[in-house]
């Protein structure tokens, strides 16, 4: 199989695009796709400052590498969650190695245990009945938003890829989780106290972000988080892969046509403006109920165990 552009041996074949490319041309193709996605969904402009949430995994490091390569002012934010078995230590080391290999890349590190008093596993032990993954999501969203607002960034960029978005969409569609179906998007606009969120990799499959990382020599953390509730997501991804094997480009159609159909037919409407938001008494971030936000309630000892239960539906990793 030959590269469509130069005739050399192809490194990767993308059946859904009927496109095989050699390593060199694939490394040029990926940034072009990301740039198109940024433009198509009006994620951010060339002069805006972006905060990239990096985990040490293939997707977020690929995203950071691509944004830097495209000339964006993209700083990194790494949140050390204190996951055991060397997981957080290794993932932080991968991020630091990335920074060393990218002169001019700026990284901010937030150590959850040092800053707030407990790691995620410790927090999960204290909060019996709450899963580590749901706590982790809550903590990360809060810290990312705080860092973006404090730093004056135009947007937080995350490394969600097409497979991630497809898996979340399938999960939420099977449950008809309307508020989540209404909100799943490549861009979540800024609201008072909430930074804009963007997902520039939503048109790339995870095999493409992995191939990019391999070809670029980006050393990423390969193993899953030991706490990962991966089984559910992996199950949906397997189903989507089976559909894909029978009908190429199903993954693209499922997600991208969903976005188009929702817009065209005005589906899954949730009136955000009708939601009355209040500033959290402690951190100031918006929350739907007066008092402390869900994040601050986690750390309030006098309210131990009283935080709201997890909602049905999922926003993905």
């Amino acid at each position, binding site marked *: 199989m030959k590269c469509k552009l130069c005739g050399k*041996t192809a490194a*990767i*074949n993308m059946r859904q695009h009927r496109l095989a490319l050699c*390593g060199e041309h694939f490394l040029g193709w990926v940034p072009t796709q990301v740039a198109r996605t940024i433009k198509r969904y009006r994620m951010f402009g060339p002069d805006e400052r972006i905060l990239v949430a990096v985990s040490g*995994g293939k997707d977020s490091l690929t995203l950071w590498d691509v944004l830097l390569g495209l000339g964006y002012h993209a700083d990194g934010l790494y949140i050390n969650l204190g996951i055991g078995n060397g997981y957080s230590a290794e993932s932080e080391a991968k991020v630091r190695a990335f920074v060393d290999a990218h002169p001019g890349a700026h990284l901010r590190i937030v150590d959850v245990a040092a800053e707030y008093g407990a790691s995620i596993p410790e927090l999960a032990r204290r909060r019996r009945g709450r899963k580590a993954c749901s706590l982790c999501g809550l903590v990360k969203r809060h810290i990312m938003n705080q860092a973006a607002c404090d730093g004056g960034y135009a947007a937080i960029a995350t490394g969600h890829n097409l497979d991630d978005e497809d898996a979340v969409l399938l999960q939420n569609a099977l449950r008809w989780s309307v508020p989540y179906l209404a909100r799943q998007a490549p861009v979540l606009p800024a609201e008072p106290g909430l930074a804009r969120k963007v997902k520039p990799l939503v048109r790339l499959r995870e095999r493409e972000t992995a191939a990019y990382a*391999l070809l670029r020599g980006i050393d990423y953390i*390969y193993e899953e988080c030991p706490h990962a509730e991966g089984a559910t997501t992996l199950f949906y991804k397997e189903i989507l892969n089976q559909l894909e094997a029978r009908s190429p480009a199903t993954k693209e159609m499922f997600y991208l046509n969903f976005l188009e159909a929702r817009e065209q037919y005005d589906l899954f409407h949730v009136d955000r403006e009708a939601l009355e938001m209040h500033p959290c008494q402690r951190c100031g971030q918006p929350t739907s109920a007066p008092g402390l936000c869900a994040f601050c309630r986690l750390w309030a000892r006098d309210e131990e165990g009283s935080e709201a239960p997890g909602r049905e539906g999922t926003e993905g*990793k």
Partner: protein
Amino acid sequence: MKLIYRDKTWELRGGMTVRDAIRKVGLDPEAVLAVRDGVLINEETILGEDDVVRLVAVVSGG
């Protein structure tokens, strides 16, 4: 030919494509990338008897 994935190794005969080899060991060609001698190879590459191919999982479940 050797196929290596995480802590598993399979011995397969040469002459088959990467895609067929991946399927033969029960994996999904969409979910892994194949690397031979440190080089990413496409799924239609025909593997030789002496090839050693490392499969890299691309799926993240977080």
